[in-house]
């Protein structure tokens, strides 16, 4: 293979592994590069790995074979620094269950666990607990019905998270209906 073609193939492998979030099967890459011979492909990979990645201290990545495929990953000696960088501002994740629960509380507040569970169609004890821990909701009182269930409402932290000044800034259901229910306008010209 001439050096130019080799460079181009290495660049392509890097780009496609970069874009893929999952390991890519070597067979797919070979087909893509028009290579029939596994040995030839291995040679390309060896050049890429050795000359471009491992032996270059200015590179932060390396090739990894895993899950039946090839993947670009960061070099292990950078682990500590990367961990430090990414834990500083690691975003907390809300599950879809928590988001659904939160949306019901935001729009229906105050709401009881039973009301939430009924609307979602599943027991919502877990997400309510989770939201309480994250301080996105709080108990504001008790509903005057048998069992005196707790009433949940959103907190000031909730507003901060979602960048709202006050609850009235939440899009209204009318606005949403308008936005979501626009049907294809019927044609007058048919």
């Amino acid at each position, binding site marked *: 293979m001439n050096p130019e073609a080799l460079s181009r193939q290495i660049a392509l492998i890097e780009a496609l592994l970069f*874009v893929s979030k999952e390991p890519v099967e070597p067979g797919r890459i070979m087909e893509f590069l028009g290579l029939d011979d596994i040995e030839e492909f291995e040679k390309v990979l060896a050049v890429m790995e050795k000359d471009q990645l491992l032996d270059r201290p200015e590179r932060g990545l390396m090739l990894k074979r895993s899950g039946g495929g090839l993947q670009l990953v960061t070099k292990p000696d950078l682990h500590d620094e990367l961990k430090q960088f990414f834990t500083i501002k690691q975003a*907390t994740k*809300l599950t879809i269950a928590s*988001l*659904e629960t*939160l949306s019901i509380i935001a729009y229906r507040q105050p709401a009881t666990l039973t009301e939430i569970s009924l609307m979602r169609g599943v027991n919502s004890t877990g997400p309510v607990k989770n939201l309480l821990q994250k301080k996105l909701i709080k108990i504001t009182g008790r509903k005057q019905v048998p069992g005196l269930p707790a009433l949940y409402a959103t907190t000031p932290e909730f507003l901060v998270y979602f960048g709202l000044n006050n609850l009235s800034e939440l899009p209204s259901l009318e606005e949403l209906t308008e936005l979501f229910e626009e049907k*294809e*306008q019927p044609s007058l010209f048919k």
Partner: protein
Amino acid sequence: METEFSGYQVQTEYFEGPLDLLLHLIRKNKMNIIEVRLSQITNEYLAYLEGKRGLNPSRESEFLMTAATLIYIKSRSLLPKPENMDDDSPEKQLIHTLIEYEKIQKISRMLREMEYTELLLWRRLEMNESFANREYELKEVSAFQLAEIFFDIVKKKEYEQFLEIPSKNYSIATKQEELLALLAHSGYLDFSEYISKLDSIEELVVSFFTLLEMVKRHLLIAVQEQLFGTISLYRNEPGKLEN
């Protein structure tokens, strides 16, 4: 030159709306937008409407409303000469809107080119990961999405309780009763809102003719309160429009 803006062109299979069509006619006639006499292109505009050539099919009510405005402008121009076109004449207003719209088209073209350049660059993890695992990052969730989620829940609920609507037969007589009942209830009817809520073409056609019939028989008054505003329908009550 043709290919440079091909990205913008490919999707322009039809005129986005009345302004798009008007600008096209102005350019086609090599008119200057500042000095254009809209009455001169009214016929061409109407010809497009009749031929339905390249009109965005979901925008017909807007094309029609502008047609009404153009006819009005033309009828004014046929009247004994008004000394000056005053600044808030419908023609001046429409021309102003056209000038603004021309800018929007320019910006759109620029954004299209920028988009094209950017789409050549691939970023990591673009495969919509957050939807694959049904998790949103809190940081990225907007109030809008929260509302969207709630809306989905409500919709799902409504759907569960939804029973099949039996198909109806529409007649002008029953439609008229329905419209009068609606008007008695809310005082007026927003034309485009009303037609957008209809279930079938059949109902739409019947409604449209019923409305026309009622306007013709002076049971209803149709008012367009501002240029490009929607058409409002009122019951014709004595004294209603006299002030």
